Each structure stands twice: as C-alpha cells, then as structure tokens.
C-alpha cells in the first residue's frame, strides 16, 4: 500500500490529536481532576484554619471533606461509566479508604496538642498516599507528595503561626496547579 508523504503526515496528525483528546477526556482515571478538587478543598480548609477559630475551622473542614468525598465519588462514577478498568484498579479506592481510617486512628491515639498538629498529621498520611501512588502507578505523584511534605514540615516546625496559610497556598496550590498542568499537557 503506497501513500504520499503528505498523507502520512496527515495520518500521524490524526493519531496524535485523537490520543491527546482521549487522554484528556478520560484523564487516566480522573487523576488530574482529583488533584484539582482536593487542591480546592485544602485551600479553603487551611485558609479557614488560619483565620477562623478552632471550632468553626473544624466544622468547615468536615463540610469541605464531605463535599470532596461526594465529588470524588461523582468523578469516579463518571469516569468508570466511560471506561471499564481491570479489577485491580478498584484497589486504589480501598487503599485511600484504609489510609484515611488509619490517619483518624493515629489522630485519636496521638491526641495532637493543636489544630495545626492534627492538620499536619493528616497531611503526612495523605502525602504518604501520594508517594505510594507515585511509586505504584505514576511517578509525578510521588514528587508532589514529597514536595508538599517538605513544605508542610517546614511550615509546622519553623513558622507554626503561618502553617495553615502556607498549606493553603503552597499545599492546596500545588495540588490544584499540578492537576491543571497535567490536564493541559498530558500526552
């Protein structure tokens, strides 16, 4: 079968364009959408921790996390309606569920001294999840996990008065903008 140089160029252009659209539409299981969603949750949650009293901030966190879980389930259902994945992919959801249960258990046992300490402890568990996901499935998540952990540790140990603000801007921002970057540039 013979084709011209131009036809070959056009065919390759079609392949690249369709693959780019497919990856963007399905976003590899919704990963970038989850990052952006939880970036927004973190931003407002930590911002509340900086400017509101402890009780109001705690309620705000519960509402935000509840909304985040509902939105994550909706994203997951939307993606899985379009693409069926092998059974092992569902283990990811179970892993996060287990991690959150262990984080809550750790908070209950350790009885952290302040709201910042609770937030720092939960941040460590969540970032451990990112690192595991990165090692397991998709490398950049591990780097995001390590980066946010470093920022959180520096904020908690050296500038505790601004820990929440740092986490809102750098932690929430890192999650949101890495998700948005991946969505625009993933090929």
């Amino acid at each position: 079968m013979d084709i011209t140089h131009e036809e070959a160029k056009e065919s390759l252009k079609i392949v690249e364009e369709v693959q780019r659209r497919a990856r963007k539409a399905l976003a590899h299981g919704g990963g970038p959408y989850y990052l952006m969603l939880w970036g927004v949750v973190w931003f407002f949650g930590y911002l509340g921790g900086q400017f509101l009293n402890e009780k109001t901030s705690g309620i705000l966190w519960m509402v935000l996390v509840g909304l985040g879980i509902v939105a994550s389930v909706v994203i997951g259902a939307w993606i899985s309606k379009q693409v069926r994945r092998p059974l092992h992919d569902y283990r990811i959801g179970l892993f996060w569920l287990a991690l959150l249960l262990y984080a809550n258990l750790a908070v209950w046992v350790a009885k952290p001294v302040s709201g910042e300490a609770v937030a720092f402890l939960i941040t460590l568990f969540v970032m451990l999840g990112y690192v595991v996901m990165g090692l397991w499935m998709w490398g950049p998540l591990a780097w995001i996990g390590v980066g946010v952990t470093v920022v959180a540790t520096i904020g908690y140990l050296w500038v505790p008065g601004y820990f929440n603000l740092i986490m809102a801007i750098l932690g929430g921002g890192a999650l949101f903008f890495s998700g948005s970057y991946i969505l625009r540039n993933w090929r």
Partner: protein
Amino acid sequence: MAELDPIIHQPVRLKIMAALTALSDDSQMDFVALRNLLGVTDGNLGAHLRKLEDAGYVSIEKVFVARKPHTYISVTPKGREAFEGHVKSLKKILGK
C-alpha cells in the same frame, strides 16, 4: 517500502485504534464515549468496529449495567501490535 495496514489506514478506523490504544491494557471504552470522542454516528462507528473485530484488532463485549445494555470495546494485543506497526511505518515514510 514501509508496510502499512490497509484495515487501520481508513481514517475512522485509524481514529478508533488511536483512541483505544490511548487506554491502558485491559481497559474497555464505552461505545457512546467512543462515539462522542470521535464525533461519528452510531451506524458509522458500528460498521467500522465490525471490520476491526473481523480482523481481530478489537474485542466487543455487550453487558447489562443496572439493567441497561452497554457495549464496551477494547483493543486486542494483536490490534495494539498492528497499530504500533502502522504508526511506525507512517513515521518511516516521514523519515522520523
């Protein structure tokens, strides 16, 4: 001369194969999602899928989800290999 696959070369089938190979191994795409992604009609997509299925390049599974019929399509290992070979041949023509 590079070997091009005449089954895959047809533009709609090329798009189908490009979309399906963008998924991870063993993943299946819903018929409606594939149709929307490619912007083709049900009949057109169905006809081209049959050709690809006859060639052993795609596998089609019809299932019921919450009592509604769904058709899921996936690329077979033979199809993935043929598509990769086709793309390689296109690149060879362009001297890439």
